[in-house]
């Protein structure tokens, strides 16, 4: 299988505090891959490093064949169009309506006609399970669950190959959370996405993830499928996965 993301020996240091000390992981094409670990272990930091929001201090991260520590401006811009990122609270642009939020990348990066853009936006809105009538609402007028769906539609606007999700189900009620899980599975099936997510939601982890990496004590303590995970004797894994299987 072709690996989309390759991290080798990644080190991160904040104010003399070591966050990651030699992280290695491979994420393959078409996978739903989870980054798990106790809070404060640096899952979100690692995700932010992958999407070039934060620098790392050693090792290398390779995404879709681009080395992040030696990437040029134009190459970085090109790479940014090949992924979508969903932030924890959605991070929709509050000055734009949902339609404009989703259309923004299309307007800026392509020379599609207004009619074509409208059609794409409508398709994406329906794909994530929002109604077309919601399109003219502003982010402050909609609920948390809708915000996440709209942000997902925005992340999918450019038809990315890679999707990064930061705690996609946090703050949602259990029913919406399960809906979101099945939405993610459906999207993977329909669009052949590769999805990387940080999550705490055990139900969502068991339902959606193909493989996981568990970060504890600055290192990856487990990488692989969820099948035999409870046999691992790491303290966090034992605590977290006690009930399943």
């Amino acid at each position, binding site marked *: 299988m072709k690996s989309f993301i390759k991290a080798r020996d990644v080190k991160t240091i904040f104010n003399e505090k070591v966050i990651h000390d030699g992280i290695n992981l491979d994420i393959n094409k078409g996978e739903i891959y989870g980054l798990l670990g106790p809070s404060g272990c640096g899952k979100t930091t690692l995700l932010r490093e992958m*999407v070039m929001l934060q620098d790392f201090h050693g090792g290398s991260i390779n995404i879709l064949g681009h080395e992040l520590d030696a990437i040029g401006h134009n190459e970085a811009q090109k790479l940014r169009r090949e*992924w979508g990122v969903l932030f924890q609270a959605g991070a929709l642009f509050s000055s734009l309506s949902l339609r404009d939020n989703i259309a*923004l990348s299309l307007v800026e990066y392509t020379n599609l006609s207004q009619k074509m853009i409208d059609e794409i936006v409508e398709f994406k809105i329906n794909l994530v399970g929002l109604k077309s009538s919601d399109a003219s609402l502003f982010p402050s007028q909609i609920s948390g669950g809708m915000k996440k769906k709209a942000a997902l539609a925005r992340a999918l606007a450019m038809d990315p190959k890679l999707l990064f999700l930061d705690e996609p189900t946090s703050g949602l009620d259990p029913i919406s959370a399960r809906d979101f899980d099945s939405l993610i599975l459906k999207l993977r099936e329909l669009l052949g996405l590769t999805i990387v997510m940080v999550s705490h939601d055990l139900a969502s982890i068991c339902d959606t993830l193909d493989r996981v990496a568990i970060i504890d004590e600055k290192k990856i303590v487990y990488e692989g499928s969820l099948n035999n995970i409870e046999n691992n004797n790491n303290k966090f894994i034992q605590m977290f996965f006690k009930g399943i299987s």
Partner: protein
Amino acid sequence: MKFSGEFTLYLINSYEKKLDKIDVTNIKSIEINLKDLVYFDTASSIFINSFIKKCETNGIKVDILTSNKDVLATLDLVKTSKKTSQQIPKVIKTTLLASIGKITYQYYIGLLAFMNFLGKLFVTKVYYLKSIKNIRFKEIAFEINESAIRALGIIALTSFLIGLVVAYQSAYQLKLYGANIFIVDMLGISMLRELAPLMTAIVIAGRSGSAFTAQIGAMKITQELDAMRTMGFDPYIFLVLPRIIALMIAMPILIFVADIMGVFGGIIVAYIDLGITPKLFIERFSEVVLAKHFFIGLLKGPFFAFMIASIAVYRGLMVKDDTQSIGYNTTKSVVESIFAVIICDAIFSILFTNMGI
């Protein structure tokens, strides 16, 4: 000792005082009777527990009389957690010298961060001007309207009042010397050259500068800036430069309006108080107030605008991930930009006077 009824943290203080009064040196053993307790909370449990400890270190035997399971369980909980828990480390007090050093270092880091911001701004500007397509006219126009055109009213009013007040105060002095007509020279030069640009800058710093900081700060907290970056929209191009450029374009226009209104205020006072007709005022004005004063005033505009906008935007980007930080940085933004404007004005003043302009 007998406790009965509800024993909660509100009662601890009064019991503590009573216990302190008892002289413990002659007592060999104490019975603590908790039989009649209805309710016993953890704070009182901690109190009883530490009292027992104190007695035991003084060699006093303590017996607890109770059969209530809940009370015993609470006491046990406190005892075991006391054994396992570590003390919360005390906050280390710093000396005066250490805190002076710390503050100085923070200012130094802040200065470096601002230099870093200016450097990034310059690089973006160069990239920006490489192609006309990169210039975001829509955003610039939006910001000109938002932060300048909408400020016209308040700027017109303040400068009108400033012109009025300055003219009124000096009219009284000039009358004493019978030098009434010199009000035109005085007001014209001071208004066009110094007061109008300065007042405009201060109003804009308070009105639009603070808005820049709060807007960008809020966008940072809601991760909108992160979202922009991951989508490949550089916030410097989309948010920072349009604001700075918009203010640099709009500032001279605002100063021009402030000039008109200030002088208008002066004309009114001169007519009412000194009996100088508007016609005479304007004739004298075109005679003695050279055009260079007007142009110097306008020239200051873009410089002040750059100071205000860049400090405001920089402060917005400095907002950390908590809500308090927005207030702190907005205050800082206004104070620092007004200070920077006054410093800049002083430099101009010295420069132009020495150059003989």
